[in-house]
């Protein structure tokens, strides 16, 4: 299996190429657990991530950003679609097709950083045990080698190796998140999925963790798939951003493009909702009316049309495909080329 559409402008091949990813959850009711409907959590999502890049998935709660990330590491079984991953051996494998046994060696190359540093570390394991567990699971190194590796990883995340025998409760939120990062790095992964990695941290500590993640990316050549609802953090860390709405992609672009010249009305509304950082920039807020569509019972046509000020009759019936616009951006809006949008 090799990817055809993988060739990007600079000739590099993507590390991860997600095509037509679909994840439906059945809604079950009654004594016999009959399926009475489906929640279309992820509904035909396609994007790629270049090696060394940070790609972010953003959107409101329930837009399917976390489900997308979890389907990629097969924490959820994707309903449909291809997840083409370029392995260390430079082979392209479809993660969606692998059996769980075949998936196991690949998992070394895909690691995850979780949101809540208080819930994601086992309180009964010390730091050495937590960070060396992935090594143990994959049968890597002798006991001495593992200890050296843990010390090295702790230095890498700017914690002192002497703390190795301490337990998670002795560490602050920011330190715990760095321990989680060290654990994710233990197996030299190629792709790191970070699901809201700084959302649980105090604002004064967020910058430490973001800076660390960017430094590690530069020194170790990591690739990040970053999931967040915090657009300011996303803007700071990402090379490209995928905006999702009710399980579908609204728009893909660089943070600057999305913020300065959004093409999808939803992107514009999202960017406009972010508080301005200085009181002198207070403007009349563009407030998006209504509620996010229910993924179990979405509207017809473009899912955004009931809230969209530019909706036409076409939008009510026809699902807009994600297409490349004139200037090489990806937007799924029937009217992307006619409407003028601002974020003020």
């Amino acid at each position, binding site marked *: 299996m090799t990817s055809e559409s993988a060739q990007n402008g600079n000739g590099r091949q993507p590390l991860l190429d997600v095509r037509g990813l679909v994840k439906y959850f059945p809604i079950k009711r009654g004594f016999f657990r009959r399926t009475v409907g489906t929640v279309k959590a992820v509904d035909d999502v396609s994007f790629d991530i270049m090696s060394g890049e940070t790609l972010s998935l953003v959107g409101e709660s329930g837009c399917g950003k976390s489900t997308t990330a979890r389907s990629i590491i097969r924490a959820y079984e994707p309903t449909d679609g291809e997840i083409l991953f370029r392995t260390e051996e430079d082979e392209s494998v479809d993660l969606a097709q692998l059996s769980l046994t075949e998936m196991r060696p690949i998992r070394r190359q895909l690691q995850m950083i979780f949101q809540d540093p208080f819930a994601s570390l086992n309180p009964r394991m010390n730091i050495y045990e937590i960070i060396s567990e992935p090594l143990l699971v994959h049968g890597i190194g002798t006991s001495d080698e593992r200890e050296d590796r843990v010390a090295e990883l702790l230095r890498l995340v700017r914690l002192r190796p002497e703390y190795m025998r301490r337990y998670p409760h002795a560490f602050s939120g920011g330190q715990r998140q760095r321990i989680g990062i060290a654990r994710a790095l233990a197996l030299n992964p190629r792709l790191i999925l970070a699901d809201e990695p700084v959302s649980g941290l105090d604002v004064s500590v967020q910058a430490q963790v973001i800076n660390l993640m960017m430094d590690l990316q530069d020194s170790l050549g990591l690739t990040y798939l970053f999931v967040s609802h915090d657009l300011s953090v996303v803007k700071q860390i*990402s090379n490209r951003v995928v905006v999702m709405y009710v399980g579908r992609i609204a728009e893909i672009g660089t943070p600057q493009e999305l913020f300065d010249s959004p093409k999808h009305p939803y992107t514009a509304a999202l960017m406009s909702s972010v508080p301005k950082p200085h009181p002198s920039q207070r403007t009349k807020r563009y407030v998006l009316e209504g509620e996010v569509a229910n993924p179990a019972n979405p509207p017809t046509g473009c899912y955004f049309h009931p809230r969209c000020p530019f909706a036409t009759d076409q939008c009510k019936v026809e699902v807009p495909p994600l297409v490349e616009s004139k200037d090489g951006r990806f937007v799924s809006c029937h009217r992307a080329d006619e409407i003028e949008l601002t974020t003020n």
Partner: protein
Amino acid sequence: MTTATQEPTAIREQSEESILSVRGLETHFFTDEGIVRAVDGVDFDVKPGTTMGIVGESGCGKSITAKSILQIVEAPGRIINGEISYNPSPGERPATDILQFDANGSRMRSIRGGEISMIFQEPMTSFSSLHTFGNQIDETLRLHTNLSKQERFELGVDWLARVGIPNPTQRMHEYPFRFSGGQLQRAMIAMAMCTNPRVLIADEPTTALDVTTQAQILDLLQRMQEENDMAILFITHDLGVIAEIADEVTVMYLGKVVESGPVHNFFDDPLHPYSRALLTSIPSMFTSSRERLPSISGSIPHPLNRPPGCSFHPRCESFISGVCETREPQLDSVNEEQEVSCFLYEDR
């Protein structure tokens, strides 16, 4: 901790035009491990029709300050000192110290939820799941008004409509689980506003919400404020939200006020090293991509292990050796509008 050398904070004079003045508020938690001084001498004023933003990170005591105002601090917490002057018509009548009222007495109960109401951070857990929304708003109105059952129902419907909830009559008969997070927060605002409060305390009202819903809620609060000339005490850790809605800012760190002043001064000329560090370390939509932000070293100390002297000194860039770790700074005016608690400004 050097309590022997510490002088009691002189209670500052209450400003005359304030609707709410907090002076020397101390709320401590008496736990098995020791006394946590969650709120440790807090002063601020709120003027009618304006928004006071209280900024701080976890453990700074901002929520406990809010709960102390309404005397709803849970055990083992206790308000041990301070004065909370409430004056619904400043300048005309003398203020009353509502901290003197019995927490469960009739006077405090008529103020709490009536003249001073509060909206909480987690709309999902702040309603009773066993009663319809109509029942819950009815309870508030029964306590604070003399309206008939029918009038109360109509007022409830009216308020749900005003906060933008569709089909309000039907929604009055529904249970909270039928509302989305944004709708619940709006329903909570309706419930807090239905008694026409003079002061609204909003404790992180948008933190659990998405940015689009946050924008809707902030818009709604500002509209309500304009209509009712209500004062808002807005508690948050999000400086972006402060920049959007606050008129005045009070910054707290580990139970103390470190800086206060008008919002423009705070953003243009922050005085306390903690305020300055916060403002530069938080990414905004205007920082360019892939830029490294200056970060504040260390983390917030454990409340039982508060550093001596100025509690920010271990993380402070302007740390003065021999001063900051031995003496505790006091909140003092630097100019006509700003106050700061830092030795850098002591000689001014």
